[in-house]
């Protein structure tokens, strides 16, 4: 399972390199790094986890993780807010964690049952 997450590490590295370069050109490097981390958490982490359920190659999964993660997190937040839950840092992080963990847990379960 862990080897499937390796490309996600490459995405994180590319985002970090982009942030460091941008830091030299346009303001605080720390701010760019924090934005890169936010983009990674919001878009790539949940999107990549969801796409693990499809038979894609690593590049396809990394590229389409961006729109898939964005739509998954934002749509869940949309409905939570309709039901009166405030959009806060905790809510956003909670949604990211739930989508990611649930997706990986389901995949893990599927792999175990198919191994049996």
């Amino acid at each position, binding site marked *: 399972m862990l080897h499937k997450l390796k*490309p996600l590490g*490459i995405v994180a590295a*590319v985002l970090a*390199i*982009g942030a460091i*370069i*941008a830091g030299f*050109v*346009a*303001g*605080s490097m*720390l*701010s*760019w790094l*924090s*934005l890169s*981390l*936010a*983009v990674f*958490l*919001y878009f790539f982490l949940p999107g990549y986890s*969801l796409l693990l*359920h*499809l*038979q894609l*190659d*690593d*590049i*396809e999964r990394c*590229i*389409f993780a*961006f*729109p*898939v993660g*964005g*739509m*998954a*997190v*934002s*749509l869940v*937040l*949309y409905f939570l*807010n*309709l039901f009166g839950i*405030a*959009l*806060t*840092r905790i809510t*956003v*992080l909670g949604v990211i964690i739930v989508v990611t963990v649930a997706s990986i847990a389901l995949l893990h379960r599927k792999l175990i049952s198919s191994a049996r």
Partner: protein
Amino acid sequence: MGDVNKLHLLAVIVIALAGVALMVLPFIPDIAQDTLPISLTYDNFYHPLMAKVVYETNQHTVYAPYRAMGVSNALLADPPLPYSIPATVAMLTNVPVYNVFVILAALFQVFLCLGVYAIVRKYFNESIALFALAISAIPATSAWLFQYEIGFTTSLEAFAFVPLILFLTFYLFEKKSDLAAVLIGAALSAQFMIHGPIECAYVYVFISAALAAVWLKTKHKWLVRSWAITTASAGVLSAYQYALLKLLRLTGENISGTLLAGNPIPDYFPKPAISWVFGALALIGGVILLLRVVQRKATKQQVTLICFILLMIGLSLSFVIGVDGSRTMRQYYNAYPLLALIPAAGIYAIIRALKGKVSDNIIRIADIAIVVVILYLSFTPTFNELKGTATGSMATPQRWQAITWVRDHTPADARVFALFGFEHEFEMLTERVVYKGDLGLTFTQKNIIALCNAQYPETYAGQWGAAYSVRQGKVNGTEEYPVHAGFLNFPFTTMLRPGTDTPIPTVNDEVPLSSFNYVVLQYKGTQVDPCMAFFVNQTQERGGKLAWHNDQFAVLEVPHAA
């Protein structure tokens, strides 16, 4: 990523980073600076402002009062995701919302190009995909980035889901996957929640037709099931927002209308020039792609992609038969990363013609060399064009003075009528309830014609309801309209005409000047200066007060309020 050519992968990463840098660096000199991206023109005045409202209020269900005629809890009925995505991403970082907004728009554009790359790489080949990526992520002119530059970021972001939808549809051609079908439905819903029905409508029709065509040929039952799942998930996820949209009282002259509304192409829409080199490459590529389809050498995925590109070209040109030019022309800029496939196929055809004479390694190096040439030729001029946009602004110093005066010197609940000289959405910056006089141009013209005929109209025509007017709560009076009883039944509130029980309508109409506290107008530097001067003088003669002016703009206190 063992199955990937490492040199190509490196090229993809470099192009993607260069694409983001191209679009972000001209507009964000300092990421920590909390400044409205004013140089990105008009829609970007409003969208980042609303994103900040979502960020500060921790919700995206109601408007800021100044956006909704002063109503404090007006339901947010326009698509919410363009505001809530930047706002919620900003919650995870210390970067100001305004900058997050701009950077995310650039990321959506670059991931649109990357999505096309992934499709072309899988269903054509890696070289064509790489060329198409270089051409689309670093376009030869910023005109191709018009959607981003002008601030039509909702259209751009909605279209960014198209490669994902096409890719997953192609996936369904081969494999049974309920998850893929649900994701397509969710992506269509995301499109709807970003830019309303426009992009998601034609994409939905197209993929439905594609699934039907493949089903007719293969009789795979899962295609029907997948279509049903896609339709159901898109429908369920969009139902509430769709109901809100149906409640809208759209105002203005089709400004918020549909593709069939018949607006002409605005003259500020650029017509990107194509160099003869690219034109020749596109001709070669286009002929080769069409020949593959005609000779039945193309796979169903290739045929579907080419058909989608043809649809986009057709949609872009449909203004010639009277379809809304301002909407369809935008699909032309949207589709650019897909159109890039055509010259990329031309480049590949030329290299392939040489293949017999040189080794594969040389060809691979040639691929990279071509990408380097594209980047070298395109990056600097396009960056400089965008930099020029960033240093300019549609707000003249005089106009800014008028905006900041209204914002800083009028009561927070003041009603301001922008009689003339303020463009679409521009009024938002005053953070006041502003009644638009010039969004529906004919209404403005009616006002101006009267003034030019030396008539001081007792009532003024304008767009009173703002573009989105689903409201609840109380202002001066309440009038409830049961709409769609049984499903949603929002109480509407309208403001009453002064001294009457009649509400100011949520559609374009004429109302007395006394409905307002202030009138702001440009009286110099227009083609109707004498008419505006007439209004200024007459208002003062009737007891109004010139509250403020500079050498172009004036703010008048309306006689009743004075």
